[in-house]
């Protein structure tokens, strides 16, 4: 079957937006695992909470009569991101650090339960929270039609924004003092502590960073689909986690590759099968095969020896 190249470009564009969202979620998983060897299963729900915080902020802005969309988008993004960064830090301080010496299963369970509590709270306490909520369309809706490709300015902006955020996190980790401390703790927490690194501060910063990225993923998701709902974090969390694992838990590049890989698999699945509902089955089946082939992920992390 020959395919119009513009349609291929369209699939590619759709896939890239998805990939950026998945990568942002996956980077969080990999950061937490890299630094503290924990798997935080509430991460997907933090994505959702970030989107809802932004939505609530927008409602607040509307209420006081501010309608400038550029101003609104900056305010809701900043508040959503800061709120989730704070939530992430609190979560690590109150739930994860105290359980540091308990079996890892406990951390997994407690974050799973926290995620559930967060999800149900939004559903119960956000006004009309069990219904899907329209997310404001704040990005310009200009679009260009090239052949059969519909190139939308908002998609391009979201890709640039997401990739920018991931690069910024990468630079933060590679180029700054706190990044150095994060890397030191990831490599060897005991030695890092002996070298005078404030362990708790590093952990809190990492969780704040990962959760901030999750909030951004949630807001991107809302802006792209013009809709958010209380259950959106569930699948996003599982996809983000799979992407991080298949890329290699603990590896930043691995998470990014994993995110784009999953989006690519979903898109290929949808194009290939006459029943697109199979695309998730196809994508997850491929992930299972990949994990059987490379159990520590495509880019294995240095600390893989701890197994």
């Amino acid at each position: 079957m020959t395919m119009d190249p513009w349609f291929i470009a369209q699939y590619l564009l759709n896939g890239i937006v998805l990939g950026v969202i998945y990568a942002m979620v996956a980077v969080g998983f990999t950061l937490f695992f890299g630094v503290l060897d924990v798997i935080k299963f509430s991460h997907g729900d933090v994505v959702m909470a970030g989107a809802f915080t932004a939505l609530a902020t927008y409602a607040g802005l509307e209420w006081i009569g501010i309608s400038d969309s550029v101003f609104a988008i900056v305010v809701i993004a900043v508040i959503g991101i800061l709120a989730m960064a704070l939530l992430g830090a609190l979560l690590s301080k109150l739930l994860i650090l105290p359980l540091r010496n308990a079996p890892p299963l406990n951390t997994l369970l407690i974050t799973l339960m926290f995620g559930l509590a967060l999800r149900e709270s939004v559903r119960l306490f956000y006004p009309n929270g069990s219904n899907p909520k329209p997310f404001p369309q704040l990005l310009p809706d200009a679009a260009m039609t090239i052949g059969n490709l519909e190139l939308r300015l908002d998609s391009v902006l979201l890709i640039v924004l997401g990739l920018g955020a991931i690069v910024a996190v990468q630079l933060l980790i590679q180029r700054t003092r706190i990044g150095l401390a994060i890397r030191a703790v990831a490599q060897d927490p005991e030695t890092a502590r002996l070298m005078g690194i404030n362990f708790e501060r590093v952990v809190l910063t990492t969780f704040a960073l990962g959760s901030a990225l999750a909030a951004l993923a949630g807001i991107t998701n809302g802006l792209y689909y013009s809709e958010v709902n209380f259950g959106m974090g569930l699948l996003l969390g599982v996809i983000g986690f799979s992407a991080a694992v298949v890329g290699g838990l603990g590896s930043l590049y691995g998470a990014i590759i994993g995110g784009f890989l999953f989006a690519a698999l979903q898109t290929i699945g949808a194009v290939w099968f006459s029943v697109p509902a199979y695309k998730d089955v196809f994508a997850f089946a491929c992930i299972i095969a990949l994990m059987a082939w490379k159990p520590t992920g495509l880019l294995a992390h240095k600390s893989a020896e701890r197994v």
Partner: protein
Amino acid sequence: MKLNRAILIISFLVVGFTGCSSDNDTIKIAFIGPLTGGVSANGLGGRNSAELAVRLHNAKSTKNYEYELLSLDDECKPNIGVQVATKVAADGRVIAGVTHYCSAVAMGTVDVYHKFGLPVVIWGAVLPDITYSNDYKEVHRVNGTMINQNEVAADFMLDQGYKTWVVIHDTTDYGKGHNRYFSESLVAKGGTVIGTFGVSADQQDFNAELTKTKELNPDVIFFGGLAPTGVRLRSQMEKLGINAVFQGTSGIVSDAFIEGLGPLAEGVIAFREGAPLENLPGGENFLAQYNQHNFGEPPEAYGAFAFAATQLIIDAIEEVGPDRQAVTLALNATRDHDSVVGPISFDDHGQNAVALITRYVIQDDKWVVWENSEYAEGKRDL
């Protein structure tokens, strides 16, 4: 002495309990529908309409019983639906039920009602199998099925000159039913389905399906599913620059669909059994009463059916008393019963014959009957 005291206490308790039950002459009727979740607008509209029927009856001076509506949420999910249906059916104080907007839920719960012998009247679910794939005497339905709806839809769209369709349907019994009945009618009448995509009901991203659709370049996208999925699909269609006509089913006929889309809803077509409310015999009176009772939400597309179903049940209980079996028999015998949605007659399967199908188009943020729209006059194009 001690024995006496014990007897005294027991007799107090007995008197207390009987006292309680004697002032409890109210009869419980259950309402089940989606009160939360994506299609909750329809569920709440139905609940309010059922509540209105109960209130109007309780306000009458001559009546045999007082009624109380017990509202439960099925979330439009079959598993939750079976839970609440079991809860209601197992509660001996509930005499009958006004149940379900979502076909997938109704398909799961009819077995429960049959097992417990609870007579129910369906007020919104349209899948034919709910009444026709079983012989349950307990199950009745006041609204029509999706078969007629899709025949009219195929005829109408072919008359408008459209030739090719892509069908996108959710993979619940409801969406699959629409796909089946619409595709069958369409092909039999000479239309062509050039692509069919099943999607999950809570899917968020339709870009892959829609890009494929764009390649196929159909005249019309037929969507068999409910409002929340429809909203996502329509808005993502726009983002991919697809100009096909968006044709929905009764599942998107709700104000929530228009609210979710804003100006993008313009020109969307859908079909629903039954005449529009304003043309119904008691339609205006129903709306006036509804507005008087200050419900927070509009009655939505199926409110009148829920109202009629509740009245039907109340009338049956008034006639034969609060006994499930007797009520089932009384409901089965319903012939030309006057109601807000027109005369109700149940066939052997408890199905009401609703012959009329109304064609709708969204014009200026409202569902407008096609014949009254500017589209029909040729002032606007789909």
